[in-house]
């Protein structure tokens, strides 16, 4: 019972144009995400086919030999270029070129159908690389053209170049399908994790890294990308206390700082007066760390509007490490939203001697720095006095805070402290920790974000990559104390952000600047829209789904109940659409609507109209059945017949009015039945 259109008919020029539009709409969003040669190959093939004389498929020899060979060559090239093939990105690249090859090869409407399927899947792959409002907006015309292409492929005989009607028909069907699509979007079960292991290769890491070389954070600071957004449950903390703790770097090899391997669990900060609660919406960065204000008082929990409403144990999504980092149990590959409590403090109690040992290690380099540190230490009466002296030295000497420091070589700390004296926060934090370690004080670098901007449209805080920061921690008398040497050089960095701290002329990212131009205000409005988009649509994951279902009282529903609900809604939806179509048709001709209402009434009264009976014959039969209204019935039949089959003599409206009046004059059904 499968209906196969005859494969012999070749693709018409018009069908080819629709397919080309679909393929191009599927390919364009991927342009910025693929290698140049793949883009050129895939789209070049499409252009080639369009440029070829239309209505004439490429010769059979080309189809049979050259194109499969081309596909094989592309596959091998991709394998050679990427170094692997069975992963997400090479497969997307291959599909991209394959769609082009299939387009060149397409000969019959059947090929066209296959091409439509391939292009649809290709349109999905753009979401691997971004799920912004823009990418959704690009996918919509692709779906419209998909419908148009299918309609044109179906109609093999049509040679019309009518393009509006298929689009309008598809748009109507899409609108009709939206209730069903929305329901499926909401209730279709979302997974907490992947089905198979593929997402491990998903996307490049963004944001902070687990190592810090000079230049790493200043590079990050040039980006306006949003790292996370925060909703505070109460007033936000003052800018100087917005230290979002991220990776803690204890190891130093003379050039680069890096994280220690797993050292054990840490202890949460004690509850204090300066407790604060907030919800973080973290953009995926493909790393496992989560961010919290210093210092976390609780483990992050999946955000819920009402934590008491969810029965059962709350699953831990992260652990707190020995050096007070929050590490998620899995890399953050999708936007997550967690509620976090912190106690605002710049110190916390250390736990034992392991800390001490790990944070005194220093390679045998940078002799001038070590000499300087020992000399300074010998004059200081205590560790604290020494640290104050170091910060004072930073403050007094002619250090410059800049995003464009000169390149350092050899003993980088020596070169920075005594020669160039121009650097960004990672230079200051790194050099500071080296100075402390050289003096025998355990210290380490902490990276994360400092600051954040309150968006007036929505009242939440935006933390961007340009807020990335590095500071230091020193172990003094059993307590880890935060020191920010950057603040000694450029106090406004901590108080007012990057834009205020950098000298004029530095390439500050646009949104990190302080002046509130209308453009920046527009960007903030746009960010508020984006935030809702991220929360409501892109971030619609297992947790949000549970929340929503709970709001509808469906949290306790069994799977079959949900399936039954969907089936019932789908059924009701179908009836509604069909009923709507019928009602709209009836509205289109009032005469027909009136006549069918009369037929229904007489049918209920026991005299249904036979399908082969015209209006006059039916009226005659009804008149003989109900002789008391025979004149009225006959007149109804004649008026309707004149309306439908008579000449258009301009009396249409009067006739319709007369018909309506006559039908209204008939008694109700009960009277007629008796």
């Amino acid at each position: 019972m499968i209906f196969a259109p005859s494969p012999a008919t070749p693709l018409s020029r018009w069908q080819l144009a629709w397919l080309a539009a679909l393929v191009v709409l599927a390919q364009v969003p991927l342009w910025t995400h693929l290698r140049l040669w793949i883009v050129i190959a895939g789209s070049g093939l499409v252009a080639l086919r369009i440029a070829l004389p239309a209505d004439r498929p490429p010769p059979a020899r080309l189809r049979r030999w050259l194109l499969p060979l081309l596909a094989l060559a592309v596959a091998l090239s991709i394998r050679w270029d990427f170094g692997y093939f069975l992963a997400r990105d090479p497969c997307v690249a291959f599909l991209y070129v394959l769609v082009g090859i299939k387009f060149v090869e397409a000969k019959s409407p059947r090929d066209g159908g296959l091409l439509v399927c391939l292009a649809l899947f290709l349109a999905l792959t753009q979401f691997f690389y971004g799920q912004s409002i823009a990418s959704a907006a690009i996918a919509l015309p692709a779906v419209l053209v998909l419908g148009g292409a299918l309609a044109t492929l179906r109609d093999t005989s049509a040679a019309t170049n009518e393009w509006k009607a298929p689009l309008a028909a598809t748009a109507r069907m899409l609108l009709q399908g939206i209730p069903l699509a929305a329901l499926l979007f909401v209730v279709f079960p979302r997974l907490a994790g992947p089905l198979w292991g593929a997402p491990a290769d998903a996307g490049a890491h963004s944001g902070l890294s687990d190592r810090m070389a000079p230049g790493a954070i200043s590079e990050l600071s040039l980006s306006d990308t949003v790292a996370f957004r925060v909703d505070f449950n109460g007033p936000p903390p003052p800018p100087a206390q917005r230290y979002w703790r991220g990776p803690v770097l204890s190891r130093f090899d003379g050039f680069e700082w890096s994280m220690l391997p797993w050292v054990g669990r840490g202890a949460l900060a004690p509850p204090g007066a300066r407790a604060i609660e907030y919800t973080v919406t973290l953009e995926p960065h493909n790393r496992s760390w989560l961010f919290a204000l210093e210092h976390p008082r609780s483990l992050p929990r999946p955000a819920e509007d009402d934590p008491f409403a969810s029965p059962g144990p709350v699953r831990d999504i992260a652990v707190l490490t020995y050096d007070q980092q929050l590490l998620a149990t899995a890399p953050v590959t999708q936007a997550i939203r967690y509620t976090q409590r912190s106690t605002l403090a710049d110190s916390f109690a250390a736990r034992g001697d392991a800390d001490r040992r790990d944070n005194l290690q220093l390679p045998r380099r940078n002799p001038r720095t070590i000499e300087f540190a020992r000399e300074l230490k010998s004059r200081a009466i205590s560790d604290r006095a020494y640290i104050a002296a170091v910060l004072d030295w930073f403050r007094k000497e002619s250090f410059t805070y800049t995003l464009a420091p000169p390149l350092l070589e050899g003993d980088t700390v020596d070169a920075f402290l005594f020669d160039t004296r121009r650097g960004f926060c990672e230079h200051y934090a790194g050099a500071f920790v080296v100075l402390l370690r050289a003096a025998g004080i355990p210290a380490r670098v902490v990276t994360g974000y400092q600051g954040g901007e309150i968006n007036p449209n929505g009242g939440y805080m935006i933390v961007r990559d340009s807020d990335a920061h590095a500071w230091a921690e020193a172990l003094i008398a059993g307590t880890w104390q935060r020191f920010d040497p950057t603040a000694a050089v450029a106090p406004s960095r901590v108080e007012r952000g990057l834009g205020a701290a950098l000298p004029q002329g530095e390439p500050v990212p646009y949104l990190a600047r302080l002046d509130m131009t209308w453009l920046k205000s527009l960007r903030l409005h746009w960010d508020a829209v984006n935030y809702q988009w991220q929360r409501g649509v892109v971030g619609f994951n297992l947790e949000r789904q549970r929340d929503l279902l709970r709001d509808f009282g469906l949290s306790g529903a069994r799977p079959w109940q949900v399936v039954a609900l969907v089936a019932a809604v789908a059924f009701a939806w179908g009836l509604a659409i069909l009923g709507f179509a019928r009602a709209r048709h009836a509205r289109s001709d009032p005469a027909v609507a009136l006549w069918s209402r009369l037929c229904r009434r007489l049918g209920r009264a026991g005299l249904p109209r036979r399908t082969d009976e015209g209006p006059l014959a039916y009226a005659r039969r009804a008149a003989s059945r109900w002789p008391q209204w025979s004149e009225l019935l006959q007149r109804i039949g004649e008026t309707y017949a004149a309306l439908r089959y008579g000449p258009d003599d301009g009396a249409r409206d009067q006739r319709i009015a007369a018909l309506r009046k006559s039908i209204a004059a008939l008694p109700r059904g009960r009277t007629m039945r008796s």
Partner: protein
Amino acid sequence: MSTAANPRSWIASWRQRLWRIAPADPGVVVLRHRRIYILPTRRGLALIATLAIMLLTSMNYSLSLGHALTFLVAGLVASALLQTYRNLAGIAASPLAAGEAFAGGQVAFTLSLANAGAARQAIVVTSRSGGSVSVDLPATATRQVQLTVPAPRRGRLALGRVTLSTDFPLGLWRGWAYVHFPVTGIVYPAPESPAPHLPPGLQGSDFRRSARAADAELAGLRDYHPGDPLNRIAWKAVARGAGWYTKQFEGTGGSGTLEFHWAELPPGFDTEARLSRLAAWILAAEREARAFGLTLPGVDLPAGSGAGHRRAALCALALFPPERAP
């Protein structure tokens, strides 16, 4: 005993309901949901499979917009299903006319498709053995559709089950419904070819006599056709080895009334050959505008002429032996 209690009749009624095997449909059939079937086409299956792969991908990579795109297209596919249904539902199909043909030709059947609702497009009407016709039905319009069915043998030819189908609007679904009207066309016997000459006709005489009476006035010879009476073959010419000829007599091409008798056809002919000969004669008589009578076992058609007479005669041949009237 009710029909439901008898499993065999229960099965039969379901078979009839599902496949409309028997020509049991009343005069007008309005296509409703009980009659309409819908299954995905090959292209629809391919698209649904693509959607399934897209869904798996979206789940695996937690692509919220992937879910959205998949469900959006799924909504489009579901909506197309409704449109396919709507395109068929409510069409009133009825048989209008059944044609006639000679065996080996094609019988044309005319159906009427009435549309009481909104416009419908690309309704394909297919007969079981014949070709198919595609028709568009504008809103509240009635269209006639002609189906031709090959007629290999004489007799009655049933139209058989007719399928009304559509894959409008996107070609993703094919909806169809069976209608099986008890209409039959008539298939006449194939006229003998090459056409034999008419028997000589004489007013009120039978074939044999007319042949004998004409013996005296030999007009000439013509080529022999198989089935020519033995006594009119030019045996002398055959003996000379000059070939087979038949003697022709004055008066055979005249304008007298013809009488076609079953019994006077050559005895070596079987039934079908006789019917073919008679059909050819009827056509020839019609061509020459001569009145003719027809006598078959059980059928006696008085002499006459005209299209109605010709049709009656050909029908008698087509339906030979005559059906016993109840």
